């Protein structure tokens, strides 16, 4: 029982802020007589979908020799079709605005269907070599299919997957797994990440301006900035013993532009990314200056300087706590 909440509900009822019905309902919640398991159900769905997709991947890996390619390909395609049939049946009509999911499972079934399509496509490409040496293009095809599903069924999850597949086509992992961007020889990946990031940011601006699925803009913008600033940070740190004089100025320009834009547009999420990138750039510069003991003074003073800047800048942003 949550006594504090119960007492507060009682006080709010006495003041007339809450109606009798509301106070009764919230009183039940505070006494623990009514509990929502919505989050737990969602987590179970998430784990369920992940396990099924992992099972499909393992099936393909382990049974290439035992089962024929047609059996495996058709089996996974059938499972994907079943998921998408459910989605098509349950989906509300298309709209350029936000559309609420009709059921709790809707997003996850759609995600599973799209993941199974990806598995099947990759498997068939590996088996039949349809694209030959240009096999990575299947990632672009997959990305476009996922993008179409994301727009039709208004799914941020599938949109994120589509953007990740597009980045993967250009050799960039959204998760930065293995720190691939940071290697000495990963110049090409960093340039790709920069271009893909800029493309995502531009696409986000475009859909927002056009008013077509404008609520997708944060997904485009945040992933875009993550790639753009991530590539610049990786470039600035990738030179190992010397400061890279192309990437470091690029990092300074991109982070300053991001901070300025976020400040103007009052976007906390973008502002945070810009500040973190600029801060990492500052640390890289501090190391380069070889101040020895002075380095610690510089980093300490710089950190508290950024802190003051944050507290000052925060006044402009309106954000839900």
């Amino acid at each position, binding site marked *: 029982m*949550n006594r504090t909440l119960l007492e507060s509900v009682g006080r709010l009822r006495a003041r007339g802020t809450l109606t009798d019905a509301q106070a009764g309902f919230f009183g039940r919640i505070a006494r623990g007589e009514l*509990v929502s398991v*919505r989050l737990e159900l969602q*987590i179970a769905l998430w784990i*369920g979908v992940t396990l099924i997709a992992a099972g499909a991947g393992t099936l393909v890996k382990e049974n290439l020799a035992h089962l024929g390619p047609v059996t495996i390909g058709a089996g996974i395609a059938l499972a994907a079709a079943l998921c998408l049939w459910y989605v098509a049946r349950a989906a509300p009509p298309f709209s350029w605005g936000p559309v609420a999911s009709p059921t709790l499972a809707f997003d996850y079934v759609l995600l599973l269907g799209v993941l199974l399509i990806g598995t099947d496509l990759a498997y068939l490409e590996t088996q039949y070599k349809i694209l030959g040496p240009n096999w990575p293009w299947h990632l672009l095809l997959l990305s476009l299919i996922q993008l179409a599903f994301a727009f039709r069924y208004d799914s941020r999850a599938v949109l994120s997957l589509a953007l*990740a597949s597009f980045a993967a086509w250009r050799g960039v992992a959204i998760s930065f797994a293995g720190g691939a961007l940071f290697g000495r020889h990963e110049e090409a990946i960093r340039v790709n990440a920069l271009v893909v990031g800029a493309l995502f940011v531009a696409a986000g601006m475009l859909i927002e301006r056009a008013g077509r699925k404008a609520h997708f803009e944060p997904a485009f913008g945040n992933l875009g900035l993550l790639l753009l600033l991530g590539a610049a940070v990786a470039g600035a740190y990738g030179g190992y013993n010397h400061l890279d004089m192309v990437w470091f100025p690029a990092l300074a320009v991109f982070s300053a532009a991001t901070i300025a834009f976020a400040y103007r547009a009052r976007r906390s999420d973008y502002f945070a990314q810009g500040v973190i990138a600029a801060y990492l750039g500052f640390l890289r510069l501090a190391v380069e200056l070889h101040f020895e003991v002075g380095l610690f003074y510089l980093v300490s003073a710089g950190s508290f300087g950024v802190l003051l800047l944050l507290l000052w800048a925060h006044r402009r942003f309106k954000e839900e706590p």
Partner: protein
Amino acid sequence: MKQAWRAVDRAAELLAAARGWLAAGLIDERAFGAISADYSSPGRQLGPIWRVLVFICVVVGASTATTVGFISFGVRSAGGVGVALLVFGVALAVLTDIVIDRSAFVPTGAEAATSLLATGYLCAAAFVLLDDLHLHGHEALRLTYPWCAVVFALAAWRWGFRFYAGAAAIFVLLLTAQVPGARLLWIAVAALIAAWASVARATRELTPSHRGGVELVRIVALAAIYVAINYYSVDTGFLEEIGRIIGAQRHHAGEVSLLLAALGSALFPLAVLAWGLRSRDRALITLGIVTAALSLTTIRFYFHIAPLWLVLAASGAALAVASVLLERWLRSGLDAERFGFTASALYDEGRRERLLPVAAALAMAPAARVMPEEPPGVTGSGGGFGGGGADGSF
């Protein structure tokens, strides 16, 4: 915790609840506005992104300032470092009090950072000072663990951070693992902690932060009991290994112990789940489900009942179908609830609802292709066969 902090803590809980009720459509803007006006804290509110930024700045700034302190005062010896850590730890604890008391922003993230560094320094000081006194290994750990437990417990009590309460419980349990024949003592101590936390939670009037801390302590203690009775843990002597002196003989479990462990692995998750359902306690329900999954994994480890892909796909399908059926069953009840459970949003589930599928999708994103420009032996992040794509080879 000071009286004024308790009031702020309670107001913050009510405001968070009201925000959740508004998001779930249970109250209107007018009611929310009235609650906000009555219960808003005097300071400005910092959102989660800002708090994280402030936290990072303070952690980096304060830890480098500590290094500057070491260098400036010429602290070199282990004893000097230990004493300096004690002094810095106490200073940061005082600073935490000042930040909570005087800051214009509530909460800021700075108090979390200074308190974390304070507890970290105070714990590290014990390690360093004991090392300076030539106490090593288990001798040192038997003194350090209770010290750390006290430091974290005091931090949880003073500032209300629930993480510290959980850490204190873990250090108490780690101390029991240092004693020969630790498993029984570990179970007994964990059971006592769980019982204390359950009673305290039910009978004492706690602030929201302290209640959260006590809840975490209870879950840590129950999880510790499961760790002690799990078949794999008993079979491999996991707990005995923690306290084993280097060179000493490894522990081997007897048949009776293994039989009891098998029974415990099967019954404990069911008991916790039943307890959770009966008391409508989400944390216990979650713990019951997680421990049940771990017990099933343990069975799979010892008995290969089916191929891995089938186990993964079948358990995933079972979990997903069970969730969908349970949701429908709850929704079809009177007022969309059954036995005090509902699948409707009561707080801020909606916000997490938007983030969870995105996290799931990104976790299953295809691996990036390996760029052809890379020299031999160097690879990008491409690699395995993912849920949504492949890198060209299985």
